[in-house]
């Protein structure tokens, strides 16, 4: 009996272990695949022409700078919307709202997270873009800003639910201690609860940003897809073309193994590396914050 138990234990441990390791394996395999399909692009196209300003693949102009800048500006705009709004909502749900309100809000936010992005894209094309064009007096409503607003909307539920969990796990004693010292509710939230939940909130922000930078369907529908190099804040209100939309729009057409095909994979690689950097920065900040907290506690 005991023997079979330890046997079972052994198998279960290995199973769990292998599913843990499989995440590493899959990421490595995907990255390897991207490298294999994307790196030949460097041999077929000069680095200088990859860093060019014109993206017109049917005549072999493979400048990816406009695409990178397009993705960055849309994501930046989305983060500027999703971070304050998401953290604000999380703070309200976790710290301020009465219990009944919280029980309505939380599932609603999660429902928002389940909205298919195509549906949001429809809303964007039919409602938001025409409205923004008239309201902001723009030449067209299909701009980076429209994409940012919708992506912000997509990222908010992610930010809210992760940040809310982090705030929720701050021990009640922290807040009570602050109140006992005479801190107001706002001071408690700003100086005690939020800093205590910092690593979780930061994870929330990074997950939100990751969600935004990888989103494809909505941005393809509402940003106009014009490969213009974004040079400043003004570009936020002009059409842009993102890396994801480019891959999605052009992948179906390319001949397998052509230069264009390799360049599209190269763009995928760049996208992968950007989100890798975002994640590494996030986890290193989280790690450092933890170490300091441990020092204080000890």
């Amino acid at each position: 009996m005991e023997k079979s138990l330890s046997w079972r234990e052994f198998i279960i441990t290995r199973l769990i272990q292998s599913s843990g390791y499989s995440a590493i394996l899959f990421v490595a395999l995907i990255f390897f695949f991207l490298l294999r399909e994307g790196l030949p692009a460097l041999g077929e196209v000069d680095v200088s022409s990859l860093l060019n300003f014109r993206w017109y693949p049917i005549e072999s102009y493979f400048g990816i700078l406009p695409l990178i800048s397009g993705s960055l500006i849309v994501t930046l705009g989305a983060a500027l919307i999703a971070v304050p709004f998401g953290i604000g909502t999380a703070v309200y749900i976790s710290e301020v709202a009465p219990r009944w309100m919280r029980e309505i809000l939380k599932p609603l936010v999660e429902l928002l997270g389940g909205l298919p992005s195509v549906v949001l894209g429809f809303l964007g094309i039919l409602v938001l873009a025409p409205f923004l064009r008239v309201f902001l007096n723009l030449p067209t409503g299909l701009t980076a800003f429209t994409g940012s607003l919708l992506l912000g909307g997509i990222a908010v539920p992610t930010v809210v639910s992760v940040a809310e969990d982090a705030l929720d796990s701050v021990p009640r004693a922290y807040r009570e201690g602050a109140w006992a010292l005479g801190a107001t509710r706002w001071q408690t939230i700003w100086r005690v609860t939020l800093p205590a939940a910092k690593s979780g909130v930061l994870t929330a922000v990074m997950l939100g940003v990751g969600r935004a930078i990888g989103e494809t369907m909505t941005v393809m529908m509402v940003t106009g897809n014009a490969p213009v190099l974004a040079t400043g804040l003004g570009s936020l209100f002009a059409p842009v073309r993102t890396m994801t939309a480019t891959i999605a729009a052009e992948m179906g057409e390319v001949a397998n193994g052509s230069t264009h095909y390799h360049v599209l994979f190269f763009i995928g690689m760049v996208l992968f590396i950007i989100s890798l950097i975002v994640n590494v920065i996030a986890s290193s900040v989280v790690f450092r914050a933890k170490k300091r907290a441990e020092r204080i506690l000890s």
Partner: protein
Amino acid sequence: MKRVLSLLLLASFIFTSCSKSNNSSGSDSPANYIENKGSDTIVNLALAWAEKYQGDHPEVRISVTGGGSGTGIAALVNGTVDIANASRKIKDEETSEAQSNGITPVEHIIARDAIAVIVNPENPVNELTLQQISDIYSGKYKNWNEVGGEDRPIVRLSRETNSGTHVYFLETVLRLGNKEDKTFFSTSTLLLPSSEGIISEVRDNPNAIGYDGLGYVPKDLKMIAIAKKVGEPYVLPSIDTVNDKSYAIARDLYMYTNGAPVGIIKDYLDWILSDEAQQIVADLGFVPAIK
């Protein structure tokens, strides 16, 4: 990509439901099955043909998908479709790639199409020369008042680069048919993934100019009358002006098969050139192929 997938899904649903209904004919054999894929310009026409033809010949099944001319030709080159639809001629590279796969693309002209240049009805501009349209799209003109319109910025709309219509428009309008010309679409041209995207933006935005196949232009948008040169008459696109060659932006639509068609594919293509099938062409707003 998603649209292609959903179309495929839809096609497969139709396919499976059909196969249930005429089980008796046992038509699951590949000999009765035609896979047809490509140009989004042609997809509605191809669907209408396939529907009619399958009604008259219940033993034949035809699956139609869109995705763009490049997508269809790529599929033919890879040997995954029987007929590729294209709104442009096959490129030399594509032919040589096909031949290295052991496939010989054969061209069939199945209909003609005019490209209409469309603007919002609020826009007072009614007519343009080809050169003016070229200059608008290349970015030389940035304001409608440079071509006799109101003081409004010009918002240029185009299909994505995988669209045969995009390539045709580039060659015929932007470069005015001159192969040496290296004029490009202005980088600020919005590249929209579908005809519907262009139509909804033109309908909504008085700054916009777009282009689309004649068969796809709804009645509430304004088509521009086009002159080939300054001093020549401005002509609106229609079946008559395409056939008498007075409208400048008209092209042939193609189907490509691997080798000369045989069996049911030959029957189908012969039927497509019949009066009955060409009537469907006219009903959908395209121009029947000249025999």
